[in-house]
């Protein structure tokens, strides 16, 4: 009997564990280690953050799901990987610290034959002084953050109902943030909600982002065929904001936040200051800080992980200028080049470089988005890696045979722009491939036949459908595996 250990139960880790167990059956063990007791369907946190949904509607308790499906669940955080075992322990293992009530702080070594690191990001609020829900800004990165944010929106609404004007800033809280898409969804949903509550005229809403142009979304933007033109996403995003009376500041790195305002610098060397009554700013991400040790106990973290804490996989990490980046730099199997039984999926794998062109301010401060790798690609990667590992466990292959390069796959994204079954809208986008391939598609890097987008009520219906479908899938209800990633 072999044991597969999956670290993390987010979109990627949960997908990998669920499919691996389905394919492995009772002959082998699948163990999931996750510090939280539940799965969070993060895309719907936006609706929690504007008060349209309760947190319990976007989470799934993991223990009963895993019990029902024969997956062993350990509510714990991973501390270190020991891929060669240790003195007196010949098997590789992961050191974990339990977070479950009654076992909090208990340390355990969990041995493995195969390990999938799906630990997701650490939210680096400390990167900008004053950033984060414990300081002066709100967040929707987790369902509890989003719920607290919704309370602040309610308080702000009350102030506006009393006639007070309120300044709102939404965007990125640091020059190296990713996940601009989540902030974009939040700002347009918040604007929609304030209109619904009849207080929009009291709100001044500002988008502040590290993107070079609006609509970059960490993907270097995208181009769509529309109305007889090939139009960049910048045009659509600016239009959405202009239509809603949202101002914007781009190319900005937030340097400091205080109780009712923030300071920022921009790519052109300028500096600015904005006051706010409410701000929702996405933090930069890093790896969760896993350590690695060899058999002798020597720290080999640098060998396995990049400096930002993400695990090195089969990517080309050679430092080179933007003009020399290639689609083939991106990983295909997500296997560690050092240990063949170690993989990383979702946000946990180290991307070879950004997708958006990297830029620095005159003083050297990097101000450009880092690459997103959430949602659909995360789940697709999790499933492909699970398939490869299962075949290796069953002895059907010595090497990972299933590929899920972000440079060879597309993604569908539905960005809510207002939640109402009759008057709501959402931007429905498809992009192929996610990583621009300028060798194959010289002009725009993408296949414009499969890169599409439109805004409308239909998108909102799809967003609702996806919410229910993916929560059903996360619960591993009958037929869950038929739902595409």
């Amino acid at each position, binding site marked *: 009997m072999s044991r597969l250990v999956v670290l993390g139960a987010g979109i990627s880790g949960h997908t990998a564990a669920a499919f691996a167990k389905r394919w492995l059956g009772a002959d082998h063990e699948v163990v999931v280690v996750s510090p939280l007791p539940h799965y969070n369907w993060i895309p719907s946190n936006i609706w929690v953050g504007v008060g349209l949904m309760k947190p319990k509607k976007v989470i799934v308790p993991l223990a009963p799901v895993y019990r029902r499906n024969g997956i062993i669940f350990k509510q714990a955080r991973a501390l270190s990987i020991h891929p060669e075992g240790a003195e007196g322990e010949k098997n590789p293992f992961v050191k974990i610290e339990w977070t479950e009530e009654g076992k909090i702080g208990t340390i355990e070594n969990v041995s493995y034959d195969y390990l999938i690191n799906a630990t997701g990001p650490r939210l680096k609020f400390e990167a900008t002084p004053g950033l984060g829900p414990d300081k002066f800004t709100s967040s929707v990165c987790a369902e509890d953050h989003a719920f607290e944010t919704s309370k602040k929106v309610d308080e702000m609404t009350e102030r506006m109902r009393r006639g007070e004007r309120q300044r709102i800033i939404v965007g990125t809280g640091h020059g190296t943030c990713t996940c601009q898409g989540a902030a974009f969804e939040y700002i347009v949903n918040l604007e929609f909600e304030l209109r619904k509550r009849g207080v929009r005229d009291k709100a001044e809403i500002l988008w502040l982002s590290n993107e070079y142009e609006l609509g970059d979304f960490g993907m270097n933007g995208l181009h769509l065929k529309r109305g007889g033109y090939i139009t960049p996403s910048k045009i659509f995003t600016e239009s959405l904001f202009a239509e809603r009376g949202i101002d914007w500041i781009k190319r900005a790195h937030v340097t400091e936040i205080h109780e009712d305002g923030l300071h920022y610098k921009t790519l052109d060397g300028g500096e600015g200051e*904005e*006051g706010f009554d409410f701000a929702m700013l996405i933090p930069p991400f890093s790896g969760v800080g896993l350590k690695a040790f060899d058999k002798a106990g020597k720290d080999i973290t640098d060998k396995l992980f990049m400096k930002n804490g993400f695990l090195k996989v089969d990517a080309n990490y050679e430092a080179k200028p933007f003009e020399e980046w290639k689609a083939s730099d991106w990983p295909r199997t997500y296997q560690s080049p050092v240990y063949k039984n170690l993989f990383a999926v979702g946000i946990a794998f180290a991307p070879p470089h950004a997708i958006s062109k990297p830029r620095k301010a005159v003083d050297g401060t990097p101000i450009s988005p880092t690459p997103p790798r959430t949602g659909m690609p995360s789940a697709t990667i999790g499933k492909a890696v699970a398939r490869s590992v299962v075949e290796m466990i069953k002895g059907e292959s010595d090497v990972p045979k299933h590929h899920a390069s972000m440079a060879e796959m597309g993604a569908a994204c539905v960005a809510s722009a207002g939640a109402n079954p009759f008057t709501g809208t959402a931007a429905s986008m498809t992009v192929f491939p996610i990583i621009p391939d300028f060798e194959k598609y010289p002009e725009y890097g993408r296949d414009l036949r499969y890169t599409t987008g439109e805004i409308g009520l239909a998108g909102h219906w799809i967003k609702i459908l996806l919410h229910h479908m993916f929560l059903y899938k996360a619960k591993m209800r009958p037929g869950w595996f038929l739902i595409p990633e």
Partner: protein
Amino acid sequence: MVDDGKKGEGKERGGSAYRERAKDQGVYATKPTRWTRFMRVFFLYQAWRFLVINLKMLRMISKGHG
């Protein structure tokens, strides 16, 4: 939107040249016509788009997953 530079309590707030520039940007952006805005939420047309978008997504998924 009117920037009166003040919070509800009347306290002086920040604000910068960048903000002033930001306020101008919207003037030069593309905006949808009334017809476009109507079609975005017109039930029958959106029911049709719902089918089309789903088919587009399935086509893209079938191309890229493997």
